[in-house]
């Protein structure tokens, strides 16, 4: 296994049913180790201890939204440079551009296909580390 192989994903999503489907998609299909947080606040508490290689976050959440959460996570020394991907149902180019400006290396459209989500993430990861 190379040092660059993706294993640990911090997944931030407030919807319980999306959490469940994504868990199957990422763990059973993708073989990743996933820590699920239901809010930005929870991610801030649990993020550093989990030491993720990748942050995967929903955008529209009550309280802290995805970009605000990423901004806050960036203040934690061990997560300052952790690559991030946003997931959103709004995939208009100007919104995607805003999310990239907010620090995302990619934006994945919702709804996602549970059978191909892991491969999508692996492809982004490979491109990022090429």
């Amino acid at each position, binding site marked *: 296994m190379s040092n660059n192989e993706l294993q640990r994903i911090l997944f931030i999503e*407030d*919807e319980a*049913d*999306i959490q*469940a*489907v994504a868990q*199957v998609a990422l763990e*059973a*299909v993708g073989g990743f180790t996933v820590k699920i947080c239901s809010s930005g606040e929870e991610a801030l508490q649990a993020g550093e201890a989990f030491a993720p290689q990748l942050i995967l976050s929903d955008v*529209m959440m*009550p309280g802290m939204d995805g970009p605000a959460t990423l901004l806050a996570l960036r203040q934690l020394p061990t997560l300052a440079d952790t690559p991030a991907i946003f997931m959103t*149902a709004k*995939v*208009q*180019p*100007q919104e995607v551009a805003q999310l990239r400006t907010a620090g995302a290396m990619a934006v994945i*459209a*919702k*709804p*996602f296909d*549970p*059978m191909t989500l892991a491969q999508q993430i692996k492809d982004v990861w490979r491109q990022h580390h090429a």
Partner: protein
Amino acid sequence: MNKNTSLDKTQQILRQLRDNFLEELPERCDTIEDSILSLGNGADDEHFQRLYREVHSLKGSAGTHGIPAISTICHQLEDSLTTAQETITHKPERIDLYLRYLDLIHHCIEIAHDKRPNYAEIDQALEAIRRHSSPHPLNGLIVENSPAMTALYQGALADQPVQLAVEQDGMVALNRLLHERFDLLIMGAEIRTLNGPGVLYALRAANGINRDIKVILVSSSQRQSFVPSLAPDVLVPRGPEMIPSLTGAVAEIARQARD
């Protein structure tokens, strides 16, 4: 455990999650209904944002669980909420409109339990709601990269009897065209992710609800060639004559629809 067994098990888990989603959906609909009714009683912006988030979340969840009909209903409901919010009006007829969308979601839940779900009547009902609630007889979609060009089209077509939705990405537009009924597609040839001809070919090749709609392609290339059976109905070259040509083409399509 071999790969096929593992995939079967994953599919089984996903089916179970879908069943759970359907089981809990009436409760989510009740919450949305309460929010809609509160909106009619003059609820504040925070309340509106909560309702919008509930509908938006349901759109994503339904799509992830493989029930695009519910996503389409939520998409139209979201559009209606956004329009009303922009004009700050949630009059009784708007509240009725939101509740009609919610009734359709309840209907989808019944259909989703069938062994071979058929959502054709949902498409028809959505179309009926749209026609009833819109002052315009035609429903059009503009797909164009450039916000400036989009504004130009919208300005030029403001007097035409067409309600116009906008998308900027070819793949997103195609997905919408496969699930939501339109009468007219106005599309730039050079758009992102999937270009105009690509969207057009996919639309004509797929056996979807918009397969035979009128398509106007706006292109900077004077020598664009097409497979004859998949060509746009009207090709409008970019340039000084673009706006008169576009307006004329839309007026003619509206006239044909009226007659």
